[in-house]
């Protein structure tokens, strides 16, 4: 909004206050988690004395919890797997989703709307049911126990395609037509015209997609379980599941690895 439409100061103050209070509620649990990760086990579970900061001075705080969490969950290996999976899946899935989103948004296809709705419907079955058969499928394909299981099923997603379509729809048709008149093929249009236009959208949701549990939409819970079940040996499981496998043995280390 341009400067001319600056609202009066009470409204501005009210908006600031509202947003800041909301942000504070977002921060409190995270702050608690950070502080718990630095407490001793006894302090963490103690419900009588609820303290925001761990007892003692900064040097007394249990920084060692992070090391212990790392060791307990073999987070070194696990983070390496996470990284590989995350990079590969992010790059490829964004590319595929953008391609398909572009097609659904701007290109002619027979039965486009029906296919699109059918694709949306695959997002609607609760993941527990779908997951059972997906696991069987991956077993049959021999993906279990390898990183393939964590990569291949996520190379494209209905959610991502939907998102890309909605973003690309706002690109003006006139721009695309001008490109076509200049002789660009559809793929060149995609690469040179559409992708740069939606770059902020891509970057912003590329980030959540990056880490397996931090993936968006219905993939989120299924990836967690996916990692847990499919990454059966420790050298193919991924970071976010590590802490889970421990169980809440100690509040401190668990919170520490969650913070990480």
């Amino acid at each position, binding site marked *: *909004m*341009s400067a*001319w*439409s*600056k609202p009066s100061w009470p409204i501005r103050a009210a908006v600031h206050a509202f*947003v*800041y209070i909301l*942000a504070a509620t*977002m*921060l409190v*649990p995270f702050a*608690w*988690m950070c502080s718990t990760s630095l407490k001793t086990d006894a302090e963490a579970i103690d419900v009588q004395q609820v303290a925001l900061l761990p007892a003692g001075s900064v040097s007394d705080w249990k920084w060692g919890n992070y090391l212990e969490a790392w060791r307990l969950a073999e987070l070194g290996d696990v983070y390496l797997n996470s990284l590989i999976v995350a990079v590969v899946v992010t790059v490829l899935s964004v590319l*595929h*989703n953008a391609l*398909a989103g*572009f097609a659904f948004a701007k*290109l*002619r*296809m027979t039965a*486009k709307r029906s296919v699109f709705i059918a694709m*949306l*419907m*695959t997002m*609607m*079955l*609760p*993941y*527990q*049911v*779908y997951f*059972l*058969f*997906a696991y069987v*499928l991956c077993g049959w394909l021999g993906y279990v126990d390898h990183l393939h299981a964590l990569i*291949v099923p996520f*190379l*494209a997603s*209905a959610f991502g395609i939907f*998102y890309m379509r*909605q*973003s690309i*729809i706002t*690109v003006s048709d006139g721009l695309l*037509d001008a490109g*076509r008149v200049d002789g660009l*093929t*559809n*793929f060149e249009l995609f690469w040179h015209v559409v992708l740069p*236009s*939606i770059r*902020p959208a891509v970057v*912003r949701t590329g980030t959540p997609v990056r880490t397996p549990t*931090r993936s968006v939409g*219905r993939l989120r819970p299924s990836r*967690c379980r996916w990692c847990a079940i499919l990454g059966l040996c420790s050298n193919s499981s991924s970071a*976010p599941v590590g802490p*889970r496998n421990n169980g809440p043995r100690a509040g401190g280390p668990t*919170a520490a690895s*969650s913070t990480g």
Partner: protein
Amino acid sequence: MSVRSSTSGWAFVAFPLAVIAVFTALPTVAGVALSFFEWTGGDRPDFIGIENYRAAILHDPQLIHSLRNTIIFGVATVPITVILAFVLAVALKAEWFVGKTAVRTIIFLPFVISIVAIGFVWRWVLDPHSGLLNMGLESIAADRMFADWPVPWLGDSPWALGTMCFVHVWRNLGFCVVLYLAALSRVPRSLYDAAGVDGAGSWQATWRIAWPAVRPMTLFVVITSSIWSLQVFDLVWVMTGGAEQPWTDVLNTHLYREFAANRLGYAATIGVLVLIITAVITVAQLRWLRGSAEAAS
């Protein structure tokens, strides 16, 4: 879409759709098929036709409770998420707003933290006896407002449902705000300027220009929020410990319990029920927001 081009759209979607067809559509179809069988996970499933559906409709009171709770959950969370996310995004885009980057990061934070951690944290905060919330309320003597204290924020009461709605919105707000920020950044500034020349104030600039301009994204946020709300599971399971309570059970937790009790066919039936409800609501939303499927000009 007016000038024809040689490459068909199908070449673009072939591979992504193939991945989705194999790894998502196929298991989905298998899952729906499972609802017509009875399977305990061991030997072969037995075909029993619509027996599962009959049992679900006639003999399962818990299903009615979870259905009601799920619908309340959806109705309560989706509109709030959409409106609040849009308002926040607009506020964060305003030139006069102080602290944009910091607030944006903080609001996004709950979304990236593992949901298990979030569930546990809120359980602690909402504990009736030693939780932060109740202690805070007591310290400002607000506990006298409630009939029976301490209020079971997570127990078997409508409060619990409201609490979980709040945490659900709290978590997903950050992501929706980011989506709207991306969509808002694509609105050409000339639109605002033209309106300014015509004498519009900032309120009108928001609702007459920005809101219609981001309608494609609104459709996306509405549909995905609905899907997430109707399929909520992790949050409820962690915060209530999976208890079979009439006021906190949602369809997905009911499903999971049946799954864990090895009644896989029946669990699939509940899954199909969720699918049908979600599909009906989504199609209704697509119709209602029709026109935002095309470009907003």
